[in-house]
């Protein structure tokens, strides 16, 4: 494969394009509502109408408005049918020929779509994720070619630093700095690992990226591998994402067949292979050291850092570990330039962020917005606010490691620093909206139960501390706790946060601490009197007789 081959694939793909394209969502959300049946019926209806030469029915990735699925978009008419059933298929084809249909449609110009800014999701819902040609037609793999032929690895790292991209897995570590550290770490063998073990409740950004545009992740990993000097990559993806796994398998196979992975990529001396590793369902394997342990075939438990993976990671070799969304940003950064990317977002948080909007909100689905977009824009304008006339009480970000941001702080811009100041975190992008009916103590208990179940059991503070914190939260919810219990809970939060081995334990108290910070009254309202507590009934520290 040389550049001309790539361009000819693109030109052939564009030349073969039919007049009308029906894009039918084939991501997991819509498929669970039978979008596969919809696509089959659309294909049949096209054949029945004899329109095979004019109409293409294309299975695409996520079209973002998940709550209204299955979704079918029509190009170039720019209509977006929602809640489509297999029976609707002939009507949609009929409408192409001037027929009438009353299938509900979403407005592609509504705030939900208009306020989006797509980098990571640029191809999502447009291309067929199971055909590499579809990705190449969108200039796919051109960035890899340019990097391999025109930039020494050092410049690739420098460009990444200049772009200002920060890790999208949650902590926001500067990606360029990480790449630079791995590049500089001595070692003949290095690895690039993609963390696709997305596990936060309510989060589905990475899954959607993998299902909708797997090649962007492969291309991003290849560029990263070239920059740091690695020749082997792993994608660690959870077994609960079978569709993502199958699309990745197809993508890797097609990339290899086309010489875009393997030996001598683009006729350069650069070799790079990617293998999948399927997680067995432990949340903690999203923690980088646990993930690497699992890739090595061991029990997925974290280990103390330092040493950091950049220095000693997979099999003791320097390892670059980034998240799906981070890698998916990479091709665009090299295709359009680091300056272009750095021009998007805020001073310290560049680019865009993908969020999975869920909970008590009208429009649930995927959104991608520039960093610094106020929360209010996301939940009220794009999300359409709480359904059924409710009011938004809080927005939860960062999943079990994050916090609840109360409605009075909705004007907070979404960036790493602002969310941190409110006791929450950016996290990987789960955003759960809560309305006035939500009991915040129950929310805290839910997340604590999650962390308790998902603690790996290696370190004591996380293993036993989450059990005790959950027990106290349960007592509070069931109106069996006293002020003494609440004090114990707060003490445990502090201790587990400061002494746990890995991020899971260190952040497990966050939802509790943040709800205590903003909704303390809800906790206190549930506390019971303590008739046998300290200082009750004249209890004293000294047994002095009443009269001497």
């Amino acid at each position, binding site marked *: 494969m040389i550049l001309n081959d790539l361009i000819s694939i693109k030109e052939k793909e564009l030349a073969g394009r039919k007049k009308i394209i029906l894009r039918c969502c084939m991501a997991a959300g819509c498929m669970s509502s039978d979008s596969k049946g919809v696509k089959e019926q659309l294909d049949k209806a096209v054949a029945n109408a004899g329109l095979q030469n004019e109409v293409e029915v294309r299975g695409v990735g996520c079209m973002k408005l998940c709550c209204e699925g299955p979704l079918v978009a029509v190009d170039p008419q720019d209509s977006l049918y929602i809640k489509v059933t297999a029976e609707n298929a002939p009507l949609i084809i009929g409408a192409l020929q001037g027929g009438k249909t009353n299938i509900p449609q979403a407005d592609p110009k509504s705030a939900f779509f208009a306020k989006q800014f797509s980098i990571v999701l640029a191809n999502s819902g447009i291309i067929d994720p199971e055909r590499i040609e579809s990705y190449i037609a969108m200039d796919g793999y051109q960035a890899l070619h340019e990097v391999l032929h025109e930039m020494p690895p050092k410049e690739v790292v420098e460009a990444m630093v200049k772009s200002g991209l920060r890790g999208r897995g949650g902590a926001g570590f500067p990606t360029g700095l990480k790449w630079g550290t791995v590049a500089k770490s001595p070692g003949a063998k290095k690895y690039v690992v993609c963390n696709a073990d997305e596990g936060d409740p309510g989060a589905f950004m990475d899954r959607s990226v993998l299902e909708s545009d797997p090649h962007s992740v492969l291309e991003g990993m290849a560029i990263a591998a070239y920059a740091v000097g690695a020749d082997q990559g792993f994608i660690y993806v959870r077994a609960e994402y079978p569709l993502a796994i199958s699309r990745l398998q197809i993508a890797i196979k097609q990339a290899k067949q086309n010489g875009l992975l393997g030996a001598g990529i683009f006729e350069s001396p650069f070799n790079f292979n990617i293998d999948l590793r399927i997680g067995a369902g432990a949340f903690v394997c999203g923690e980088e050291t646990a993930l690497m342990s699992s890739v090595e075939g061991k*029990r997925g438990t974290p280990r*103390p850092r330092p040493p950091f993976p950049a220095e000693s990671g997979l099999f003791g070799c320097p390892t670059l570990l980034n998240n799906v969304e981070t890698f998916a940003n990479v091709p665009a950064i090299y295709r359009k330039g680091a300056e272009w990317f750095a021009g998007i977002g805020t001073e310290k948080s560049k680019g865009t962020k993908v969020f999975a909007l869920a909970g008590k909100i009208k429009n649930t689905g995927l959104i991608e917005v520039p960093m610094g977009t106020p929360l209010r824009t996301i939940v009220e304008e794009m999300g359409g606010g709480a359904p059924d006339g409710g009011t938004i009480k809080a927005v939860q970000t960062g999943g079990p490691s994050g916090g609840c941001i109360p409605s009075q702080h909705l004007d907070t811009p979404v960036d790493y620093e602002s969310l941190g100041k409110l006791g929450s975190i950016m996290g990987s992008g789960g955003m759960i909206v809560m309305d006035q009916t939500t009991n915040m103590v129950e929310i805290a208990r839910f997340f604590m139960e999650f962390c308790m179940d998902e603690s790996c*059991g290696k370190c004591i503070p996380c293993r*036993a*501390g989450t*059990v005790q914190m959950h027990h106290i939260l349960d007592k509070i919810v069931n109106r069996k706790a006293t002020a003494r219990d609440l004090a114990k809970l707060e003490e445990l939060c502090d*201790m587990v946060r400061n002494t746990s081995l890995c991020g899971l334990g260190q952040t497990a108290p966050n939802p509790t601490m943040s709800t205590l910070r903003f909704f303390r009254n809800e906790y206190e309202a549930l506390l019971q009197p303590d008739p046998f507590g300290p200082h009750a009934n004249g209890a004293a520290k000294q047994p002095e007789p009443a009269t001497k």
Partner: protein
Amino acid sequence: MAAKTLTIDGKQISAEEGATVLQAATEAGIKIPTLCHLEGVYDIGACRLCIVEITGIPKLLPACTTKVSEGMDVKTDSERLRKYRRMILELLFAERNHVCAVCVSNGHCELQTLAYSQGMEHVRYDYTFPKWNMDITHRLFGMDHNRCVLCNRCVRVCWHIEGAGTKNVSGRGAKSKIITDLNMPWGDSDSCTECGKCVMSCPTGALFNKGSTVGEMERDRNKLEFIVTAREKKQWIAADL
């Protein structure tokens, strides 16, 4: 190897490059409480009892896995550290069924000793009283999961000193459990060499020689040290003999 100089609890000491803070402190006669640490096997930093404060580092780090560096200023004892250590011990006691009065290791137990040396006179958290069973299917040894603190010592000695790989951990969180082979009765294990190193390594009464009664289990750690010293230093003496 270059030496590093550092300060531990205000005391100027020197340590070999690559040494851990725990090794440096021990050499200087400063005692840091430990539980999962065992001389002779690699450290995993799991029990968090040896956490120390290091000037300039916001996080508390375990002394057993943190390497010394030049000019490091370490504090091994503070009100905060004492409080956290006591809480960790309380959590352990509330987690399983530790009944010292009827335990084979009463009087020789590291958990019991840690509790009183850290000033733990009662447990403030509600006891969970979980149901755990015992495995007494082995000819020589028994395992009482009620007393297990999941320090992983038995797993590490089994894999890295004996090389048998019989012991392992299954499950996760509070449901984690030390297992034999693929979670089979110990007596049915093909891989167990009956070397007894796991029993020697156990800090509590979880692993015991069959037939021992209350307070009878004294561990012979010298045997482990002897093997490790012989292997690593080619000296056929136990380190502290």
